[in-house]
Every structure is written in C-alpha cells, then in structure tokens.
C-alpha cells in the first residue's frame, strides 16, 4: 500500500506543515519503551497513571505493547486559563479511582515542557505513599523547563517549536493526527 500523504487526512491536514515524527517512528519508539518497562516492572503489577486528555493515544498504544500485567487510571487537572485563575490554584478535577498506597506507580505523560503541571501532580501522588513513582514521557521539551524532575523513560526530545498530533492539540484540534507535525504560521494568526 502506498504511503499516505497529508492530502489523505482531509480537513485534519489543513494548517499542518512539516511532519516531524512519522507514524512509523512513533510506533517503533513506543514499542522500545514498552519493552523496557516490561523488563523493569516484571512481577510488580504497576499502575499506569495518566492525565487526561492528551495522553490517551500514548497510554493506549503503550499498554497494548506491554508484556506484563498492568493497571491504568486517569486523573484530570484544571488547566490554567483566565476563568480557572479566578477560582484559585490548580486542582484535581478528576481523581484516581484506584488507591496507590504501596503500589508501583508509573506516571505516563504525553509531553513535558515547563514541568509546572507535572510538578503539581507528582507532589500530589507522592503524598499518597506509593511504593515507587517514576515518570514516562513520550515528548520532552527541555528548552521550556521551569521545574526539573527525573524522567525514567523518554521517547523523543522535541525542538523548540509548537507541535501537534498524537495527542498534542492546538485549541483542541489536531490531537487525532497519527504523527507529530508543525503547524503553519497562519494558523496562529487566524
């Protein structure tokens, strides 16, 4: 079957510029990460925790490639906006359903840039006394980092550009692109 071109993605491709990470590269890297996690967590029945919504794609693909038993759960946090700011600080808007006391927790994230949200979440999870807490991130944007933290599993370092696809959005669009791409500058002006 011939390789897909941007035109094959219809309206989803409108505004999309250069493809930075192809579907194939994403698939390969997620498989590598899954292999390592399966080795490290064998017999530990880890709980994979993700933050809605961007991590859905990565979490789903990663989980299907693990060769060990693992559970998943999700939390959601209030994103910074002019509206939420008026209501105070960041807070959980959906908590975990599974207790994590004494569990091996692997926090799975689609992208880390400033580290502000992740710092808040890790502090929250740490206070619940898990047996271990490690971070697995698919996309790392180190240039934007304000809060440094150890990352045990990392997929790709992303350039200092605004990217979309595979869970990453711009104004809630482009998440469902199966690759990672740049947006054309006119998208930001529009």
């Amino acid at each position, binding site marked *: 079957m011939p390789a897909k071109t941007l035109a094959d993605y219809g309206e989803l491709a409108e505004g999309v510029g250069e493809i930075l990470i192809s579907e194939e590269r994403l698939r390969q890297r997620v498989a590598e990460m899954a292999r390592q996690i399966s080795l490290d967590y064998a017999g530990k029945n880890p709980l994979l925790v993700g933050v809605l919504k961007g991590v859905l794609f990565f979490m789903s693909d990663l989980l299907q490639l693990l060769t060990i038993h693992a559970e998943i759960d999700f939390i959601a946090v209030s994103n*910074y906006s002019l509206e939420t700011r008026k209501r*105070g600080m960041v807070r959980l808007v959906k908590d975990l359903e599974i207790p994590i006391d004494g569990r091996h927790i692997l926090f799975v994230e689609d992208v880390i*840039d400033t580290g502000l949200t992740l710092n808040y979440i890790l502090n929250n999870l740490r206070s619940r006394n898990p047996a271990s807490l490690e971070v697995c991130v698919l996309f790392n944007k180190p*240039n934007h980092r304000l809060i440094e933290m150890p990352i045990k599993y990392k997929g790709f370092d992303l350039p200092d550009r605004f990217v979309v696809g595979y869970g990453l959005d711009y104004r809630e669009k482009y998440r469902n692109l199966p690759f990672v791409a740049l947006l054309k500058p006119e998208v930001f002006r529009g």
Partner: protein
Amino acid sequence: MKSIKGKASSSPPDTPAVSPSRRSSFYHPAEETFATILDYYGIEWEYEPRTFPLEWDERGNVIEAFSPDFYLPQQDLYIELTTLRPKLSTKKNHKLRRMKELYPEINVKLFKRKEMRDLMVKFGLYEQAAMIAGTGAQNQDK
C-alpha cells in the same frame, strides 16, 4: 530596588493571584501573566530580587548590570523574559553572555519571544499570544 514575591497558596481563592499592588510593579504585561501562571501552579517566585554587575569603569563603578525578571527559589533558577524580536534583542543577548562568563554558577533561563508566545498558547492565553506576535511587543519590552 523593588522586590516582590509570590506564592499562590497564600492567595484567597476568589481573587487573582497577583494583587493590584504587585501588578503595578511589573514592567511588561507578559511578566504579570507569567507571575499569575506561577502562582496558579504554586511555584514560589521573586521579581527582580538581585542585580548582577556586568561591567565596571576604571574607578570600579558599575556601568552595566543585569536584573533577571524572576527568581524561583525552590529551583534556584533565574528567568528572563523577552518579547523583543530576535534582531532587536542584541543587548539582552550580550548581557546574558556576560552573565554566563562572570557568574557561571548562576542558572539563568531566557524565554524568548517565540517561547513566550508558545507558553501563552499552551495556557490558553490566545489574546496575550497574539499581542506578543504583534508589532507592539517590541515597544513594551524594557
């Protein structure tokens, strides 16, 4: 020299984290926005708490200095924000280079115009992002 501090956990829940008195101390609206983002995530910050001498005359008087916009004490990190177009930020780049030469132990991170815009977009502040992308940004930078 002014020095104001922020910590979101002490802010009343129904008011903006940056109080009006603190807000008036910022040179640029982008700095105020940055401070409110830090407050929202509970990150302690100080505004321009320290000035680093960079050049001296033959009598030892300081003739050039640099005051990074923010200091994050928990991270031991200084942050400098700029909304200047790259070709207009030569002076700031020179100061940052001198900082690294004279104070290599000090961590300073520069958020450039494009990074500031991306940060605003990330936090859903599309109007502020558009302001940074607009021509007005270069005039408001200190």
